[in-house]
Structure formats: C-alpha cells, structure tokens
C-alpha cells in the first residue's frame, strides 16, 4: 500500500482549503474598497502592512517548529486582512504590525497553528491593540479627509458615534449618513449594507454555516430593540448600535472563524447565543469603546465544551430513541402475532 496512493473515495469535492480561505478574502475585498473610497491610500497601505507582518511571522513560526512551509495555506492572510479593518484609518503602522504579529505568533501558533485554535487570532490581536494603545485605535479621521499615506497622523482626529454610545448619549449624525457609512468610525466596517452583502456571499458560497450568525444576530437585534442603552426608542437604538458598533462585522467574519467555531450545528446555535449575551454584557459594563473582540475571546473558551455537551446529550437521546423504537417494533410484532 504505497504512502501517497489515493485513498477510499476516489471522487473528491472541488473545494480545497485554499478556495475556502479565498472565499473569505474575496468577501473582505469590498470592505477594503470602501475603506479606500473613504480614507484614500492609507487604508490599503495599513492592510498591506498587516498582511505582510502576518504572513512573515506565520512563516517564521512554521520554520521554527521545523515543519515545511506551505504556500497555499492563506489563513494568516485572512487574519492579517481582518485586523486593520477594525481600527481607525489613522492608526500608526507599528500598532497594526505588532497586533498582527501578536495575533499570529502568540495566539495562533502557540495553540497549534492552522487547525483547532483555542482563540480567534484576529479578535485577540485587536483586543491587544485596544488594550495597549486605546488613543491611537479609537481616534478616527473624518471620512473624506484623505489622511497622509505614511507617517503618523496627529491632527484632525475625533471620536465617533461609538464613543457617544459608550457614554450613553445619542449620536448626532443623521440617519442617512449612518446608513451610508459616512461617519467617524473604524476603517472598513461602517457601511452595514456592504457587510450584509458580504454575509450573503459567504452563506451562499458555504464558507460559513448559517447557525452561529443566525443565533447571534437574532439575539443581538432583540436585545437592542428591547433594552436600548441610550434614551431612544427601540428601532432607533438598533440603527445606532448596528452602524456604530463592531458586532455586525464580528458576527460575520470573526465569529465564524473555522478554528474556534464548534462543529455541531446545535452547539453552534448555543455558541452564537452565548456570544450575543457576552457582547451585550460587555457593552453595558465594559470600560472600552468597542468591546466585541473581548466578548468573543471569552466565548471562544466555551467553543469546545458546547461540542462535548451536545455530543453527550445526543448519545443519551439516541439511547432513548433506540429504546422506544425497539419497544414499538416489539409491540407491532406482538399485535401481528
């Protein structure tokens, strides 16, 4: 039996790990176009720097572990692309580079590289950056002020509607600007319409399952409507929260990262629900402006346990089902006899 002889099913699905990751990259590209449209060349340069740092540190870690590097494995490119979109366009380069190096080296490769990783690297990277440099990460330039592509940007920075939501006040932007994404906010995720198209693209391509986002967005929308944290009516607070907040972008890209998501569909629903609950709690009692990344890190802890409990529940259900079925068939054969 030769080693590289093809094994049992000799017809295989056309999708490969490369195409699955490319779906996510393609879904991220419109966000980069939007960031380029709002903030000019600097947005693309930040993305490039982050991706380069992620790929180089990933390569270094793989070589350090003594494995052969594999060019078609682009999971670090995905992490590198997700990170700068959450930060403001004026963040200095060292912030983005160190966040992606932290994400790849200390979160992804310590817990085992591409496959099952304990934490979502992009969320951990952003949480690290938000913990280290809150002023640089959360101060946003005005949308069409086209900040200088290189070098640090100090003037023309202000805090956007997310900050007023964090303080509990009603943001002053009008609704049309909020919906079109023309307000001071993170680089790539201000326009929720583009995000919705990305979600449907990923769902259609099958790159992500529908269970986790459905549970997550369902509970979040209900919570925003029923318990607004700003003195506004339900739907209005939902509009403010969804446009200014980061949880829609997180619910699409970071929540469904294949490594940390549980595998069973029932445990995915529980995982999405828990992520929503933690996001709401962190929003209410958090001390940081965008708290989705921190809430997601806490839910990643329970990814594996949901799978184990759903497995245990399923085994018990199956035993009950088999018992009833045998009883049923015995009763039927008894009738017939």
């Amino acid at each position, binding site marked *: 039996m030769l080693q590289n002889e093809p094994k049992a099913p000799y017809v295989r699905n056309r999708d490969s790990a490369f195409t699955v990751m490319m779906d996510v990259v393609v879904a991220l590209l419109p966000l980069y176009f939007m960031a380029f449209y709002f903030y000019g060349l600097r947005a693309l340069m930040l993305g490039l720097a982050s991706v380069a740092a992620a790929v180089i540190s990933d390569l270094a870690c793989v070589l350090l572990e003594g494995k052969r590097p594999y060019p078609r494995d682009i999971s670090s490119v995905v992490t590198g692309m997700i990170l700068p979109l959450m930060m403001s366009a004026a963040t200095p380069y*060292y912030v983005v580079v*160190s966040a992606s190096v932290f994400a790849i080296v*200390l979160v992804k490769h310590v817990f085992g590289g591409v496959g099952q990783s304990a934490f979502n690297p992009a969320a951990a990277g952003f949480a690290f950056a938000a*913990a*280290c*440099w809150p002023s640089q990460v959360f101060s946003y330039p005005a949308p069409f002020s086209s900040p200088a592509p290189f070098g640090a940007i100090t003037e023309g920075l202000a805090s956007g509607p997310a900050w007023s939501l964090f303080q509990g006040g009603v943001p002053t932007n009008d609704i049309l600007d909020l919906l079109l994404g023309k307000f001071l906010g993170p680089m790539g995720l201000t326009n929720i319409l583009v995000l919705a198209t990305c979600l449907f693209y990923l769902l259609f391509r099958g790159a992500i399952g529908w269970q986790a986002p459905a549970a997550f967005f369902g509970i979040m929308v209900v919570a925003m409507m029923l318990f607004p944290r700003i003195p506004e009516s339900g739907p209005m607070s939902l509009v403010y929260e969804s446009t200014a907040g980061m949880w829609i972008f997180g619910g699409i890209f970071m929540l469904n990262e294949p490594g940390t998501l549980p595998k069973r569909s029932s445990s995915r629903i529980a995982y999405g629900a828990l992520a929503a609950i933690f996001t709401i709690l962190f929003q209410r009692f958090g001390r940081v402006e965008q708290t989705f990344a921190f809430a997601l890190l806490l839910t990643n802890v329970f990814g594996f346990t949901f799978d184990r409990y759903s497995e245990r529940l399923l085994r018990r259900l199956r035993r009950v089902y088999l018992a009833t079925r045998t009883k049923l068939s015995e009763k039927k054969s008894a009738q017939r006899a």
Partner: protein
Amino acid sequence: MQPEQNSVKKNLRKELDLIFVKNPVLVTGLALAPAVVGGFTVKNGLGLSLVFGMVTIPVLVLASFLGMLSPKVPQYVRTIAYVVLAALMLIPARMLASGIAPNLFDSLGMYFSAMALNTVWLIRAPLCQEKKPQWALWEGVCQTLGVSVCILAVSAVRELLSYGTFWGNPTFLSVKFPAMAYAFGGFIVVGVTAAVLRWGIDRVHDIARLAQRQQQKWRVER
C-alpha cells in the same frame, strides 16, 4: 573520605539544578503569583526576590531544626511556627527594601507581603525537615537564586516592553506596549519565558547527549 566527598559534590550539583533545569517558578511554576503581576519593573522584581530570599531561607533552616523535634508534635504546629517566622521576617525585609529604593514598597503594595506566603517554602518545608541544617540552607539559597533569576528576567522584559526603560533610565526601544504592565501581559511574558527556557534546556540536553555519544565512539575506537 572518598565516598563522603562524592556525596557532597553530588548533593551540591543536585541543588544547583534549581537555578535552571528545575527552576521553581518557570518549570515547576511555584511562586508564580507575585512574579506575574507584581514585577513589571526591574526595581519591583528585585524587591520581590529580596523578600522571597529573606523569607524562604530562614524558614527552611528552621524546618531542618524543627525536624529534630519528636514526631509526637503534630505537623500543623510546625507549620504555624514557619508562618509566624515568615511574618516576622517581613519587617527586616521591609527595612532593607526601603533602604535600597525609597518608593519600592508603595509601587509593590500588597504583593510585597503576599510574597511571604508563597508556595515554595510551603511545599519544601516539610521535605527539609529530614535534612541537615547546612543542606537546608544551601537549598534555600538555590531556591532564592532560581526564583530571583526568573523574576528579574521577566520584570526586565516587561519593563523594556511596557515603559521602554531599564531601572528607570530610557533605552533604545521607541515602540512601547503599555499593556505589558497589566496582568495579562505578565501571564503571556511568563508563559513565553517558560517555553524559551524549556526549549533551551532541550537543546542543551540534545547537545549533551550528542557529546556523550561522540565520546563513546572515541572510547570504542581506541
């Protein structure tokens, strides 16, 4: 005299392992708590290791003396004696610390005195009861060296990363990571240093095994 000489050298050698191979903090992970959060500057690190030394060495020596008591005395009485001695040793440690750096105690806060109750002597004291006093003293010194090497290394790395300074005066580092001063930075830095230490020990063991095999080959050829 020869066997006696050997056992002394062997005993000396065994204790020296405590510094690197069996480092109490990084490898066995004993006195982790203050090392993780307390030591975010080298000054704090020095203060912590000082307190550790001032507390552990007398307790271990006392343990070797109390070992000679009759076994009728229950174990918890000895433990209480160790704890009272550890508490009393805090006062001279405190004076020594304020002698070295005036505001050392304020920046450390409760970790200074929390170091008195660390798990190193809590676990090693009953074992030292069967030892002779000079070996207990030697083990205390080695434990302190091991812990202080680790705490100083970790706090140096954390200070360089978070404030870009070393013992207060700024250094070449321009990029600062203020978060390394917080608890999670401490955990990560201690974790990474523990991994680097283990990686280094593995490399040393590989080289030693290679050298040994090389020697055997020469002896065979001769």
